[in-house]
């Protein structure tokens, strides 16, 4: 029987290392990047140097020989301080590098993974389209194999693609319709498109409500040609592949949301101890204490939820429902904690220079990205045997 809430010494040391990095390197600088809508290359380079982008990959591909749990621990600690850098890591690893690691040929892995693991290069995953988000089966982008040149010819548009337009972005893996099943449903494949390929255009950054120091773009493909060998995984299996990627990704987003929720507690405790009103710290008031106690309870519960899902993933047990539960719960409580933390900070909470304002702005997307709350509820109900 093994039941133990404690982290192994190595996980704990990783967690502490990232906590210190977030405190020493991210916290002092990220506010300015955020305000300027700038991508924090300097911080991302440091994250690469400490091996964060290689966490779940084996050493033979330049990875750290860790696992998905280690990645999630790092994400939570980064997001306690800032979500833009956390989502850059999350997308870089679980959307940029993981599909190549999981579905790529040995040559594809050797070509791309060492640079992606070191953080010198970022990868992106182009799934969402202007007219298809949660309904991923509705992909409109097409890829046709030109038999004369043995190349894929890609046409279509992708939107909200994280890490797709930085100076260090090296590739985007896109999903595209490559044929039809006998019943008319689309066959979807994943294809690696290197940055700079003619016909592949990266639009300017979106103006976003939050995650402002992360890179999010619209991509268009206009007769964009890449070698047939750039197919990632089996032809027509693209849909099944990205479902697996999304299931895992939900655990990572849950860890990130937990970090944001915990960051709201950290900031609120500090503020409540120092801010005085009516002659005493506001934290002496039970109204504030209870708010913060509830915030801590939510963050703690969210952590148990993502760690449970991650533990199932590591033990190769089914984790679909647990990942959905964790993602749903942690994203919703992240929004709640951010709202409460802002309330505790009063007028200062509405000022962008306070971290809680950033957290408030960053929280809402968590209920939307990587499967909306509604999709998670749908998945959970389906796992319970409710259909229709």
């Amino acid at each position, binding site marked *: 029987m093994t039941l133990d809430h404690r982290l192994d010494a190595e996980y704990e*040391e990783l967690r502490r*290392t990232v906590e210190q990095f977030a405190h020493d390197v991210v916290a002092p600088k990220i506010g300015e990047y955020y305000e300027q809508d700038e991508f924090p290359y300097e911080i991302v380079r440091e994250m690469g140097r400490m091996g964060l982008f290689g966490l779940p990959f084996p050493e033979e591909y330049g990875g750290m020989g*860790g696992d998905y749990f280690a990645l999630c621990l790092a994400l939570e600690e980064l997001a306690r301080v800032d979500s833009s850098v956390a989502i850059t890591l999350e997308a870089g690893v679980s959307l940029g590098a993981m599909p190549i690691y999981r579905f790529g040929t040995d040559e594809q892995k050797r070509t791309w993974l060492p640079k992606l693991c070191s953080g010198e290069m970022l990868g992106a995953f182009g799934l969402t389209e202007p007219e298809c988000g949660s309904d991923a089966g509705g992909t409109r982008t097409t890829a046709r194999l030109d038999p004369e040149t043995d190349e894929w010819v890609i046409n279509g548009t992708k939107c909200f693609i994280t890490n797709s337009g930085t100076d260090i972005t090296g590739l985007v893996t896109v999903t595209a319709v490559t044929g039809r099943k006998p019943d008319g449903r689309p066959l979807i494949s994943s294809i690696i498109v290197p940055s700079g390929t003619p016909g592949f255009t990266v639009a300017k950054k979106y103006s976003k409500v939050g995650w402002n120091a992360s890179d999010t773009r619209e991509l268009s493909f206009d007769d964009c040609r890449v070698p047939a060998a750039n197919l990632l995984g089996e032809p027509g299996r693209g849909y099944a592949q990205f479902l697996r990627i999304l299931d895992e990704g939900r655990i990572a987003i849950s860890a990130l949301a937990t970090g944001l929720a915990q960051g709201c507690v950290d900031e609120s405790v500090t503020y409540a101890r120092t801010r005085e009103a009516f002659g005493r710290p506001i934290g002496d008031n039970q109204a504030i204490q209870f708010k913060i106690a509830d915030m801590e309870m939510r963050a703690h519960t969210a952590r148990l939820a993502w760690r449970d899902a991650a533990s199932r993933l590591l033990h190769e047990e089914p984790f679909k429902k647990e990942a959905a539960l964790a993602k749903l719960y942690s994203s919703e409580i992240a929004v709640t904690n951010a709202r409460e933390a802002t309330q505790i900070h009063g007028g200062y909470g509405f000022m962008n220079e306070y971290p809680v304002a950033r957290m408030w702005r960053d929280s809402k997307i968590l209920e939307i990205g990587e499967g909306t709350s509604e999709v998670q509820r749908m998945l959970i109900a389906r796992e319970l045997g409710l259909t229709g």
Partner: protein
Amino acid sequence: MVVPACRDGRAHSVREVGLFPMKIVVCVKQVPDTESEKALRPEDLTLDREAVDAVMNEMDEFAVEEALQLAERTGGEVTVLLMGPEQGADTIRKALSMGADRALHVVDDALRGSDAVATSAVLAAALREVGFDLVLLGCEASDARTSLVPAMLAERLGLPQLTFAQKVETDGTEITVERLTDYGHDVVTARLPALVSVVEKINEPRYPTFKGIMAAKKKPVRTLDLSDLELDATEVGAAGAWSAVDDFTVRPPRAAGELVKDEGEGGRQLVAFLAGRKLV
């Protein structure tokens, strides 16, 4: 300025360039986290180490980083030396995670309450035991802040001491450092073996990678007690300390700041204020 090398028989290695990897030993100390509230134990007026988080002395992180960089450049190997209680193992593991090759941990109940004199005696004995070409340390510990140990250690071992280094270069035979001073820096050269203490300007300590953390598990850590070092318990710890805390007062709460209102003389008043405290 060239400090003559000590080759009087107490030198600990006779080596020729390139024949053997340079053996670097970094002395690290575990200290209370500078960000936590510290307190003295009422019973013996020593620091209450249980009440605070323990971390590697920040200045020693720079020494470890410098040791690793020197080892990478010269093909040397790095041993970490720590004197302190069992929980010091965490600090050793951190240094090993950063990339040090092996560690030596001196643990003994009798060491509690050691002052700089006793500490330098223990470290000197351990260094003789393990052998070295170069000893590196941080220039001070954030808890006691005396900067005494590097100098005492160099004296005990008869080594040239190159303290407050902001830059270190070595060819494996000689070592040259830039020694930080109030007015700039001196360039100091000595023959190896030597002892160098470093300042924080010297480098940017790396964060351990997960690979490093995993690898640290398998690295050898040797534990020694006083009898292994042939030291007498009465010479160390509180029993052997030359200095002890007799009394203390709690730091007074921060006084209100001085407000300078600019009525044409604001700039001068600010300069006078800073100059009065020797800050400019």
